[in-house]
């Protein structure tokens, strides 16, 4: 102990303590907020629907009801369709970790097999929008980038921002970023309208137009930063910040240097 206390006034002692404290807080937060994983493969011998029902009873029924009939804190799932379950569970939004604002994208709790089982169970309750197949999702062949951009600006940009970076909604809700979202999930979100998003039925935006939208989003994702660093593609706020900090800041630093040298 005495050996340790000799270093207590060392100049790195305070920063080191700070780092240790921060790591400690981070680790304990991580442990406290970890979600409980459902045990897999126990019901592998059952049919997909039965298996799905078992997963549902364990992981979903406390909010959505024992027969998916819904409750005071969660909607009924009867008739939401396969696409909805695939989107919500596949992107990790369901089961929710935090019910305060909206379900956020996170690492999925269930693997592909379990998700498929849940899809089978919920879609067996009543018919609803189906998961688009890979044949439908051939956006590279069937989509048009320019048309997609026009559709995007007409229907999506007001919430998801002009470049699909996401934007704010009321009361802490938000439209998430579309960068890095798989085509299948974009399509499913369009036909099911998760959370605050409206449903874009095949009458509002035809399947071909949906593919154009996906093609434009994917093009925006891949587009190189033509003018240099973009600072998030969120418009003039970050530009103004950079103008002050790097632009004027640098010039003031040089002015200070110029006037000191002259003395």
């Amino acid at each position, binding site marked *: 102990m005495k050996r340790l206390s000799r270093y207590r006034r060392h100049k790195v002692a305070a920063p080191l303590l700070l780092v240790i404290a921060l790591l400690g807080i981070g680790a304990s937060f991580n442990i406290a907020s970890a979600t409980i994983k459902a045990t897999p493969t126990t019901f592998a011998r059952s049919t997909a629907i039965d298996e799905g029902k078992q997963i549902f009873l364990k992981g979903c029924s406390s909010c959505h009801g024992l027969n998916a009939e819904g409750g005071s804190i969660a909607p009924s799932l009867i008739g939401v369709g396969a696409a909805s379950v695939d989107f919500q569970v596949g992107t990790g939004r369901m089961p929710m970790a935090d019910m305060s604002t909206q379900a956020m994208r996170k690492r999925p709790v269930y693997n592909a097999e379990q998700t498929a089982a849940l899809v089978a169970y919920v879609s067996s309750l009543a018919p609803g929008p189906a998961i688009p197949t890979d044949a439908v999702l051939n956006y590279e062949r069937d989509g048009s980038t*320019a048309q997609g951009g026009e559709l995007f600006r007409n229907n999506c940009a007001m919430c998801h921002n002009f470049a699909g970076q996401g934007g*704010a909604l009321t009361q802490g809700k938000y439209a998430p970023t579309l960068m890095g979202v798989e085509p299948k999930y974009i399509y499913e979100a369009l036909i099911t309208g998760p959370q605050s998003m409206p449903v874009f039925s095949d009458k509002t935006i035809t399947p071909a137009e949906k593919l154009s939208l996906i093609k434009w989003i994917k*093009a925006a994702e891949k587009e190189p930063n033509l003018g*240099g*660093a973009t600072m998030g*593609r969120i418009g003039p706020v970050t*530009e103004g910040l950079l*103008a002050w900090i*790097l632009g004027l800041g640098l010039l*003031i630093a040089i002015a200070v240097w110029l006037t000191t040298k002259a003395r």
Partner: protein
Amino acid sequence: MTTAEKRIGAVANYVDERIGAAGWVKKSLNKVFPDHWSFMLGEVCMYSFIILLLSGTFLTLWFDPSQRDVIYEGVYAPLKGLKMSAAYASTLDISFEVRGGLLMRQIHHWAANIFMAAIVAHLLRVFFTGAFRKPREFNWILGIILLTLGFVEGLFGYSLPDDLLSGTGLRITSAIIQAIPLVGTYISFFLFGGAFPGTGFIPRIFTLHVLLIPGAFLAVITIHVMLVWYQKHTQFPGPGKTEKNVVGHPILPVYMAKAGGFFFIVFGVIAFLSAVASINPIWLYGPYTPGQISAGSQPDWYMGWLDGLVRMAPPLETHALGHTISWNILIPALIVPGIVFTGMALYPFIESWITGDKREHHLLDRPRNVPNRTALGVMSVTFVMVALINGGNDIFATNFDLSINEIMWFSRISIFLLPPLSFVITKRLCLSLQRADRELVLHGKETGRLVRMPNGEFVEVHEPISAQKRWILTSHEQPQALELPDIDSRGVKRPGGVKNKIRARLSKAHAVAVPKVSAQELKEIEGH
């Protein structure tokens, strides 16, 4: 004399015989400018303005200021085949097909942002050091005119490319114009040549943006700089610096070399920023259509506080006699900025009325020595900062996981609460700093060296400060508050009773200070 000197002399003589400016040039070249980094902020404004002129001229060579419809057939694939205005299509062409066009566009836009930032920084420097006092009140007003011109010029430049973001800005502009009671709708119709968006506005603001406003800028900047030249630059107090002299470097060679070099540094910094950082990527925004809007639509930073004020305004409207008065736009977008700008322009006269000080001032104030003014400045900055934060409320909400409604309510309350609070805090801080100055002069610097006296007492050794420093800390004036009794010394009642009471009250608040070390006290400590 060498041959080179002879030859230069001959040329100079030839010119002088025809122009006769030798006397003026000689006098001017011997002019002295004081040296301080904050005196170069105005130069940053001027140099970025020159860069704006040059890069802007380049852009006009290719820009087509027209709202006629064209089908885009350029190289940027995601927009190919779309209907758009010629203005937007030609901006795309400048960005992608003109050699160096994108760099020039970015230089123009970054220079504009830095121009406005430098104007604000320059204005704050002039305000906090009291450089606006007599005889420089007119130059202060010219500065306010330049700032206002900058707002308008910037807004027009932002609107010209006719992309989705600039169209959104124009939409709000038209709404603000329409909010003017009675005549608003007419003015909007005249400006836009019909209902929004019309086809006339872009060509019109183009003429204003490249011709009228830059011309006005040049004229006002010329008078602004000539007045500095004629009235001489202010200087910070120090030994040997008085109200009657200017201590610094003559124009030639030192100042000229530094100023000339600094121009290229400003150009370099702006060019560097434009080369590495994207600004206003109009190809991502898409062409403007009134039916479209993007999340997170923001104005450029200098308009952000006005946007923020509009965003926090509660929905108040009055319907009377067949007219609608939109207080929710009228107050934040026209009345409040009107008060702010008028107050700024009149401040030199207001302060001189309060203090009764009608003398000339060429020595600057240290901000702490005028607590009231400094606190007022910080209060105004706080007001603008709260509004600016609310202007970016959606960006803050998404990036910091906050609720946009909570940010709005924070701003609504803070816009009334924080400015007065920052006034009080700043004033107290200034007085504390004055107290610290006084301590420093009387007791010197703490050295951290402890000495044990023969009687066992421990004392810390204080080191006296230098004579220069002592001069700086004690040379300022501490004017007394105005005495404005109701009955003057000859027993006559003073006219304007209430006005005098207000003036006396303000004057008293303005004169609050920690007494500086007097000459007698200085003499006393000399013995120590």
